[in-house]
């Protein structure tokens, strides 16, 4: 076996470990009667051990891939997102050891699993580095940012546990709507994973020529059935599906098709789940969050922001500026990715001020943490895929 194969096998092991550990954290919640038992549950400890094993194999993936390619595996969407999932688990392990709350694991690990699955939908080939990325700062800047973002993500997960526990799911309310919207979004990500995997297994390919935004002819390959066609497209594989609509040149119809497929598949999945459960998904998860102490979840969420914010500042702003000055000759250039890092930073700065001086604790603080995670994900997904800039290497 070569290193790349070993590396992807290790990643698979981690994936399975996280799945199994989730079940144990579920067991820890089901089996414990009192809060004390819940904090010291054997199930929880086994869950933790399995999570740590998964984390170690995940690190194994990271370093074997590094050895294979000769550079830190942080240079494209797959590598970055996988590392994000890894650090999310790392941050969870740290906080679990401090606070011992199985409910956090029950929400954190599935989200890590979804993130890793999402990552593997992108090309997983080992690519050589373009000149701009050939620097020691690739590792320093990106790993610090990833660690910061994953600690901040833990605060959103603690917030989610808090909200699922405390929102009254029997009465109609804005909170009930939005918490269900969060659940729906998570299902949509699964929809993306399922639709991409299905078409990948089917080996679906449709090729087109089109005229790009600079009025130059170009070619594109779809890996999902083309619901939308590129500007002035012509099919090179006419036996495949004909697009329904042609889109203007500024919109990438290929990505749009993937997006619509994900939403469609995700929505069908969501409706099925609702039909099986006969209640909102947040209500399904509520019993699992019930045993968490709200005050404690609030504190974990806040503490995660306190720990993560300085790390994020260092990685995503300070190291970023130092590297930008080396590679692009300016430390700041209002590139969309930079701006969204600044927006994330400003958002958490506002979060801290609202909490410290205006007493936004509990629900308000939990919602802010969830919104913060949405901004981080927006910067990871939308800015890379929609708003093209210097950072869109994927």
């Amino acid at each position, binding site marked *: 076996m070569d290193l790349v194969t070993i590396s992807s096998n290790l990643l698979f092991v981690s994936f399975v470990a996280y799945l199994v550990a989730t079940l144990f954290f579920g067991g820890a919640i089901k089996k414990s009667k009192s809060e004390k038992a819940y904090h010291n549950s054997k199930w929880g400890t086994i869950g933790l051990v399995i999570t740590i094993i998964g984390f170690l194999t995940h690190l194994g993936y990271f370093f074997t891939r590094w050895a294979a390619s000769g550079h830190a595996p942080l240079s494209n969407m797959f590598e970055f997102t996988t590392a994000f999932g890894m650090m999310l688990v790392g941050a969870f392990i740290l906080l679990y050891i401090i*606070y011992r709350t199985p409910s956090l694991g029950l929400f954190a690990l599935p989200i890590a699993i979804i993130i890793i699955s999402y990552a593997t939908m992108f090309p997983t080939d080992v690519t050589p580095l373009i000149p701009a990325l050939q620097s020691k700062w690739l590792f320093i800047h990106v790993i610090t940012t990833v660690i910061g973002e994953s600690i901040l993500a833990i605060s959103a997960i603690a917030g989610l546990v808090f909200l699922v526990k405390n929102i009254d799911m029997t009465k109609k309310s804005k909170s009930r709507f939005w918490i269900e919207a969060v659940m729906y979004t998570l299902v949509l990500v699964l929809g993306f994973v399922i639709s991409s995997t299905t078409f990948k297994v089917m080996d679906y390919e449709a090729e087109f020529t089109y005229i790009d935004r600079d009025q130059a002819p170009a070619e594109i390959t779809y890996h999902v059935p083309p619901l939308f066609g590129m500007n002035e497209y012509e099919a090179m594989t006419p036996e495949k599906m004909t697009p329904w609509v042609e889109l203007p040149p500024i919109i990438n119809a290929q990505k749009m098709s993937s997006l619509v497929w994900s939403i469609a598949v995700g929505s069908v999945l969501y409706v099925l789940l609702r039909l099986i459960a006969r209640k909102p998904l947040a209500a399904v998860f509520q019993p699992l969050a019930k045993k968490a102490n709200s005050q*404690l979840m609030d504190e974990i969420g806040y503490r995660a922001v306190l720990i993560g914010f300085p790390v994020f500042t260092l990685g995503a702003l300070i190291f970023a500026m130092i590297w930008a000055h080396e590679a692009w000759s300016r430390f700041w*250039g*209002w590139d969309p990715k930079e701006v969204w890092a600044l927006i994330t930073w400003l958002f958490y700065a506002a979060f801290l*001020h609202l909490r410290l001086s205006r007493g936004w604790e509990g629900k308000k603080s939990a919602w802010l943490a969830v919104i913060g995670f949405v901004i981080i994900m927006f910067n990871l997904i939308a800015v890379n895929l929609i708003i093209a800039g210097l950072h869109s290497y994927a």
Partner: protein
Amino acid sequence: MSKIKCQCGHENPYGTELCEKCGRPLSEKAKKSDIVDMRYEGSSRRSQTYKSSIVDKIWNFFSSVKIGVSIIAAVLIASAIGTIFPQKFYVPATTPEGYLEYYERLYGTVGKLYYELGLYDMYNSWWFKVLVGMLATSIIIASIDRVVPLYKSLKKQRTRRHPSFMKRQRIFGEGDVQNTEESLVKAEEKLKAMRYNVKTENGAILAEKHRFSRWGPYINHVGLIIFISGILLRGIPGFYVDEAMWLREGETRNIVGAPGYVLENKKFTLENYTKEEAEEVFGEALDKNGTIAKSYTTDVTLYKQEEGALPGSESLKKVEDYSINVNKPLKFDGYNVFQMDYKLDELKNMTFHLVNKSSEESLGEFTVNLSDPEKEYDLGNGSTVNMLGFYPDYDGIKDGEPYSKSPVPNNPAFIFQMNTPDKPKGEKSFVAIRQTLEVEENDYAIKFAAAETRNISGLTIRKDKTLYILLLGGLVFMIGVIQGMYWQHRRVWIQEDTEGHLLIAAHTNKNWFSLRKELDTLRETADLPAYIDRQDPELDKPEQEGDEEIWT
């Protein structure tokens, strides 16, 4: 304004909520509250005290956290709007019409509006700068408003507090123990072992740790102000240079923006990853993506003009040879020269033959240096060629004349006059790439023979004296946030009241769970009354031993 005298005898500044010394509630609000607001120790803040004059009003506006957060939100939303479409500096246009055309062509009416509202260059707009200025003002005023009174009251705090202060703490417990004196001694020992600074005052203990973390927020705000001032300094001439230049292979030119320095471009190299070297690991990726660039390198020699030499004179002193790479700028005397761009294969020379059309016989050849063409070329056998016109970037005929859209030889065209022994008066011919026009039928023609090309390096020259100020700002900010966020200021008060009960209270600026854990450890050693955390109704009851009635 008059001072407020507390019952304990201490004189507090006007506007104080809790006595700086003993903690007795002084204001009506503090007296009524169950849990006292400990945020700034109940000290007198200017913004909460003086509200009449215009200065007070401005001060109060900027010291408000609500306003501060609103400004942060405004900067945040504005920044987000700026990323909807590419900003000015990423758009390949130079004129206002060019920009308008670009935004309208790609983004339609919305794009046009984006341009017309000035959002296409938003980060340089006056109102964005005003917002950042307001943010800086808010940071300064809000910090001063808080840090001064906080410092004073933490300095003045007394060990024995008034019971009314203790009872209004979030964590509070009260009860009788078997041996008060022993409990206090043991508690003192244990608290010291837990690295608290312990002060005692006949039957009262004040244990305090990590007070320095309270200064974290103010230190990080100082860092931000240093950073913002650094950016302001760039406006001063000499602090900041940002220039770009194209340097062709073989050229030696003065460095734009760096007087006295001269740079020679010896060679530009673009290297791609090759399949052979990368086969094993990268093979698949190269198959899918086509070529991937490996390096952009400009080999240069840097020269410095001798002191006192006249500009343009040849007295150059070699400083060094260097290979400028992406991520490896050439550094000298505070300047950095970066590899930013390149153009491959620009035409450098073109060689032509003069031929007799009927016999196809060559009368000789000549080479035109496109960056510095000569007027006349002598072919040595009595024939000469005169260049009557040179159009380096030929773009058709305009007003009956050939037209060049730029001075760059992208598509050179010429008008030659061929003087031969047969036709001493000469024949005229227009020669462009794959095109020859003649006014009358000529006997002779100019035929293209060969061309020589060269590469061009796009270099950026920067000098930024503010970088160290910015770095200092970043460093101070990091120290501040770490100091304020990775440590917590914790205090524990234990005292015997006049009736012989033992009171215990504790406060932290954050992280109450860990404080409670510490108190639980403390209670394992010293016999102390049970406490409650009055903001945590869900706290598990049986975890504490002691008076369980307070839980119901």
